[in-house]
C-alpha cells in the first residue's frame, strides 16, 4: 500500500494566520452588528429623535441636553480616514522592502489614532448628557465607547508593529503582521464611518 509521509506544506493564497484573522474580524462585525441593531430599534421605537420627550423634569433642571457637536467629530473622522491611508502606505512600503517607510507611516498612523482618541475624550467632556440620560445617551456612549476601545486596541497593535519594525523583523517577503494590522485598522475605520453617518448625519 502506498503511504504518504506526513507533510505540513504551506498552501498558496491566504496564509492560515491571515485566514484566521479575517474570521476574527467577521466576529467583530457581528459584535458591532448587535450594537447597531440596538440603536436602530431604539430609533424606530422613539416618537422623535433625539428623544427629548423622555427627559424627566429633574434631568432638564440638571441641564441635560440631548445634542452632539458636529464639527469636532467631523475633523476626527477626516483624521481617522487619513490614518487608514497612512497605514496602507506603510504596507506598500514594506512590500517593496522599504523598512524606513514602514516605520515612518506606522508612526504617523499611531499619532493620528492617538489624536482621534484625545478628540473623542474632549468631545465627551463637552457633552451635556451622560450614559444614563435616556436611550440616546446609552446608545451614544456605548457605540462610540466600544469603537474608541477598538481604536485604542488598534493603536496598541500599531505600536507593536512599530516596535517590531524598529527591531528589523519585517521584510518584503515576511510582513504578515503588518498586513493583519492594516486590516484591523481599516475595519476600525469603516466602523467609524458607519457610526459617524448613523449618529451625526442621519437626522
Amino acid at each position, binding site marked *: *500500500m*502506498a*503511504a*504518504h*509521509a*506526513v*507533510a*505540513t506544506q504551506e*498552501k498558496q493564497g491566504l496564509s*492560515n*494566520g491571515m*485566514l*484566521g484573522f479575517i*474570521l*476574527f474580524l*467577521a*466576529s*467583530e462585525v*457581528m*459584535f*458591532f*452588528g*448587535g*450594537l447597531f*441593531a*440596538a440603536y436602530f*430599534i*431604539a430609533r424606530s*421605537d*422613539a416618537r422623535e429623535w433625539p*428623544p427629548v420627550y*423622555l427627559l424627566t423634569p429633574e434631568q432638564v433642571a440638571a441641564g441635560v441636553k440631548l445634542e452632539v457637536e458636529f464639527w469636532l467629530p467631523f475633523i476626527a473622522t477626516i483624521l481617522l480616514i487619513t490614518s487608514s491611508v497612512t497605514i496602507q502606505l506603510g504596507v506598500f512600503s514594506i512590500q517593496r522592502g522599504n523598512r524606513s517607510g514602514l516605520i515612518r507611516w506606522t508612526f504617523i498612523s499611531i499619532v493620528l489614532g492617538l489624536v482621534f482618541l484625545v478628540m473623542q475624550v474632549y468631545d465627551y467632556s463637552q457633552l451635556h448628557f*451622560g*450614559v*444614563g440620560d*435616556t*436611550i*440616546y*445617551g*446609552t*446608545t451614544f456612549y*456605548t457605540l462610540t465607547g*466600544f469603537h474608541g476601545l477598538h481604536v485604542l486596541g488598534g493603536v496598541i497593535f500599531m505600536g507593536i508593529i512599530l516596535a517590531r519594525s524598529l527591531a528589523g523583523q519585517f521584510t518584503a517577503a515576511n510582513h504578515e503582521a503588518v498586513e493583519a494590522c492594516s486590516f484591523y485598522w481599516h475595519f476600525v475605520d469603516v466602523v467609524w464611518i458607519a457610526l459617524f453617518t448613523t449618529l451625526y448625519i442621519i437626522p
Partner: protein
Amino acid sequence: MTSIAIPRPAYAERPWILDWLTTVDHKKLGILYLYTTMFFFAVGGILALLVRAQLAVADNTFVNNDAYNQIFTMHASAMLFLFIIPVWAGFGNYIVPLQIGAADMAFPRINALSFWLIPPAGLLMFSGFLFGGASDVGWTAYSPLARSSGVGLDLWIISVIILGVSSTIGAANFMVTMFRMRAPGMTMFRMPIFCWTMLVTAVLQLLATPVLASGLAMLYIDRNFGGSFFDPNGGGNAILWQNIFWFYSHPAVYIMILPGMGIISEILPVFARKPLFGYKAFVFATMGIGGLGFSVWAHHMFTTGAVLKPWFGFMTFMIGVPTGVKMFNWLGTLWRGSITFEAPMLFALGFLSMFLIGGINGTFSAAVPVDFAIHDTYFVVAHIHYVLFGGAVFAVFAGLYYWFPKIWGRRLDERLARIHFALQFIGFNLAFFPMHLLGLDGMPRRIATYSESSGWETLNLISTIGAFLIGVAMIPFIINVVMAFLRPKDQPNDPWEGNTLEWWTTSPPPVHNFDSLPEVHSERPLWDLRHGKAAH
C-alpha cells in the same frame, strides 16, 4: 510504510504537572476540555437533583424560593455554557486533527487560550454563591427581572462573555484547521462527517456568539452605568434583549447538537458495517440546519406578540426538513447492516430514538397556536431535555465509549456499559416523559413548588425518581473509567474496525499524531483499505 524519526520537543521532559499546564498539544488540551466539562456536568447534575428533590412532593420546603431560583439558573448555565458547548470543543480538539490527518490544530497557542478561559469563567460564574447569591434569573436573563437582580448576575454576565470569547476564537481555529490542514487527497467532500458538523458548528459560533456578547455588554451597562437599553422608561425596549439573546441562543442549540449528530454518524456506519447512507445529503442537511438556524430565533418569543409569527413558525417547520433528512441517513445506514451492539452503538441508538421524540415535540411547538398553549410550561422543559439530554448527552457518552480506546489506550468494560446505558435510558424517560403531561396540564416552568390541589404530585414524583436513576447510572460509568485506568494500555490502533484516519495511528497517538498516512480516496479511507477499494 515510512517511519520518520521526529525529535522529541523539550517540553516532553518537564514535570508532568507543568507539562499539562503549559501544553499546546491538541490531544492534551482535548483531554483537559473533557475532564473540565465532565466536572461541570457533575456539578450541573447535582444542581438538577436539588431541583428534582424540591419538586418531588407538593408544598415542599426543602430549599427556599431564592435558593431554588439560583439552583435552576446555575443548573442550566453550567450544563449549557460549561458542559455541552465546550465538551464538543473537547471532542473536536482531540478528534478533528486526527480525522483530517493533521499534526495539530492550526493555532495551537490560541487553542490553549480557548481552553484556559473556561475554568476561570466557570469559577467566576459560581463565585456568585459567595457574594450574596448566584444569578437567579434563569439562563435566559430576561429584562426587567435581570435589571434588578443581585451581583451574582454581573458575575454571570462577565463569565458568559469570557466563555463566548473562548468559543469564538476556538471556532476560528477549527475553521482554519479544517480549511487548510487536511491530509493529501482529502477534499472537503472527503472530510469525515464529525469534522463537517464541527465546521458548521464553528461557523455558527463565530457569527452568533459575538451578538450575544454585544447583548451582555448592554445588560451590564444597564445594570451598572444606568443605561436604558432594556428599560422602556428611558426609551429602551425589553423585547430587544430577547431578540439579541435568541439570535445567539437559537443557533446555539444547533451548536449544542450538531457535533453530537456528527458523532452518531461516525458510530452507526462502524457498528452497522456499512458506509454512511447519503454522505453528501448529510453534509448539505448540516449546512441547511446551520443556515436556517439563523432565521428561527423568534419562535421563542411568539407570546410576546412582537414578532412576525407566520414567518418564524414557517421557518421553524422548515428546519425540521434537514433534520428529517438526517434521520433517514441514519436509518438508511442501519438498514440491512450487520449491526452489533457494543456500548457506543447502544448510546447512538439511544440518541436516535430519544432525539426523534425531541424533534417531534419541538415541531409541535413550532405551530403558533400550540406554542401559545404550552409556552413556559413543563412541555418546553421536556422538549429541551429530549434534544439536549436524550440527544446531546447520549451522543457525549457514545463518543466517550467510542473514542476511549483511542484517547486513553484502554477499552471500557461492556457489561458495566450496558448497566450504565439501561439505567440512564430508563431514568431519562422516567424523568422527562412525565414533563410533557405536566406541561399540557399547565404546570409552569421555574416554579419553586406547587400546591397539592394541582394534582401534579404523582408525575413530579415519577420525574424525580427518574432523575435520581440518571444519577445512579453515573456510578457504573465512573467505576468503569476508574477500572480502565487501573489496567495497562492494551488497545490496538483500530479496535472497532473504524473508517476514519484517527484509527490509523496508535492508541493513544504519538505527540506528532502520524508516522504515515494512507491514501485518501473517500470519507472512509480505512474502509477502502480493508475492502481493497483504492480508487473511489
